[in-house]
C-alpha cells in the first residue's frame, strides 16, 4: 500500500504523489519511512532525501527543514530543496571550492556563519550528484 508524500518549499511544491518508501536525513541520522509508520515529527539536516515509487528511485538535496509523518502521509517542509536533475554537478563542486577558499582566507568582516552555510549547501549538492552517477535514478530497485 503506497503512502502519500508531499515535498514543499517556500518556492513551491516539489513533489506530491504516492510513494512506497522515503529515506530522509533526520536530525538524529538517516531514517526510512515505510507505510504504517508511527506518527513522527523530526527536524531535517542538510542531506539527501530519496523516495521510491513504482517507476524507480528519485533523489533530492534538501537543506534543512522538517518532516511530519502521520497516518501514511509524509510531509517534508524543506528550507530549500532540489531534484538531483536540477543540480549542476560542476557548478556545485566549484561552489564547494569557492566556499572553502573563502573560509580559509577569512577576513575580519566576513560572515563566517553564512560562508559555512553555503559550503554545507554545496557539499550536499555534490554528494547527491555523486549518488546519481553511482546509481542512475531510472535503475532497478536495489536489494
Amino acid at each position, binding site marked *: 500500500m503506497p503512502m502519500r508524500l*508531499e515535498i*514543499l*518549499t*517556500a*518556492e*513551491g*511544491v516539489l513533489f506530491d504523489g504516492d510513494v512506497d518508501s522515503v529515506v530522509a536525513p*533526520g*536530525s*538524529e541520522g538517516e*531514517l526510512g519511512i515505510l507505510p504504517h509508520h*508511527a*506518527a*513522527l*515529527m*523530526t*527536524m531535517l539536516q542538510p542531506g539527501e532525501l530519496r523516495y521510491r515509487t513504482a517507476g524507480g528511485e528519485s533523489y533530492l538535496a534538501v537543506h534543512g527543514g*522538517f518532516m*511530519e509523518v*502521520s*497516518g501514511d502521509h509524509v*510531509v517534508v*517542509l524543506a528550507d530549500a530543496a532540489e531534484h538531483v536533475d536540477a543540480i549542476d554537478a560542476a557548478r556545485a563542486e566549484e561552489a564547494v571550492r569557492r566556499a572553502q577558499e573563502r573560509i580559509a582566507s577569512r577576513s575580519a568582516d566576513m560572515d563566517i556563519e553564512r560562508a559555512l552555510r553555503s559550503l554545507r549547501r554545496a557539499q550536499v549538492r555534490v554528494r547527491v550528484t555523486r549518488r546519481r552517477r553511482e546509481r542512475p535514478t531510472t535503475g532497478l530497485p536495489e536489494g
Partner: protein
Amino acid sequence: MPSVRQLRGRIRGVRSTARVTRAMQMVAASKMRRAQDLALGARPYAEKLREVLAHVAGEATTDSPHPLLEVRPVRHTLVLEVTPDRGLCGGLPSNLNRAVARFIVARETPTAVITIGRKGRDFMARTGVDLKASFDAFGDRPTLADVLPVSRMLESAYVDGEADEVHLAFTLFKNTMEQAPVVTRLLPVEPAALEAAAGSPDHLYEPDAAGVLAALLPRYLEMQVYHALLEANASEQSARMVAMRKATEAADDMIETLTLEMNKARQNAITAELLDIVGGVAALEG
C-alpha cells in the same frame, strides 16, 4: 464652447497621460505575473507549516509550553500591517487601512501597529494609532532574510509580554481582478481541534518535542510574514495593472470625445466663416 486650439491642447495632454498609464500598465503586468507565481508557489508550504504546527501545538500543551505557545489573557494587541509603498493601485491601500482601523476599533484592548510599506505607515501616523515601528516595503522579490528583523520583533514582543496576541493584516490575492484585505491571528498559535488530535496518537519527536518546537515556531513566524509579503505584492501589482488599464481606457475614451468636440468646433468655425463670406457677398450685390 472651447476653441479648437484649446481642445487640441487638452487632447495632447490627455494623450501623454495615456502614454504614461499605458507604460505603467505594462510594467505592472510583467511584475504581476512573477508576483502571482511567487505568492501561489508559497501558499502550500505556508499552509502546511501552519497545519503541522497546529498538530504539534495541540499535543505540546501538556508539558511546559514554549513561550510562543503560551496563551495569556489579552491585555495588549499587536497588528502587523503589510501595505504597498506606492499608490496608483486603486482602492487597495485604503481598503486595507480601513479594515485594520475597523479591527482596532472593534478590539477592547489597546492595540499597537507595526507597518511594512509607506501607505500603512502614513495612515497610522495620521490617525494617531500607536505606531510601534515601521519598515520600508521590501520590493518585488522579498527574501526570508528581509523578513527576519520583522518576525524577531514580533517574537520578542510576544515573549516579553508587550503583546498578548499578534495579528497579521495584508491583502490576500484572489485573482487579478479581486484582492481582499484580511486580518488573521498569528500568535498565539491556534492548536488543532482537540477531537482531531485525540484521534491520532501523539507524534514521536526527533530530537525532542522542545527542540522541534524551538525550531518550528520562529520558522512559522518568518514564513507567515514572508508569505503575507508575497500575497501583498501579488495583490498590489494586480491592482495597479487593473487601475492603470482602466486609466488608459478612460483616457482613450476622453481623447475620442474631445476629438469629436474639436471637429465639431472646427466645423462650426468654418460654417460661421462661410456664412460671413456669403453674407458679405450678398450685402455687396444687394
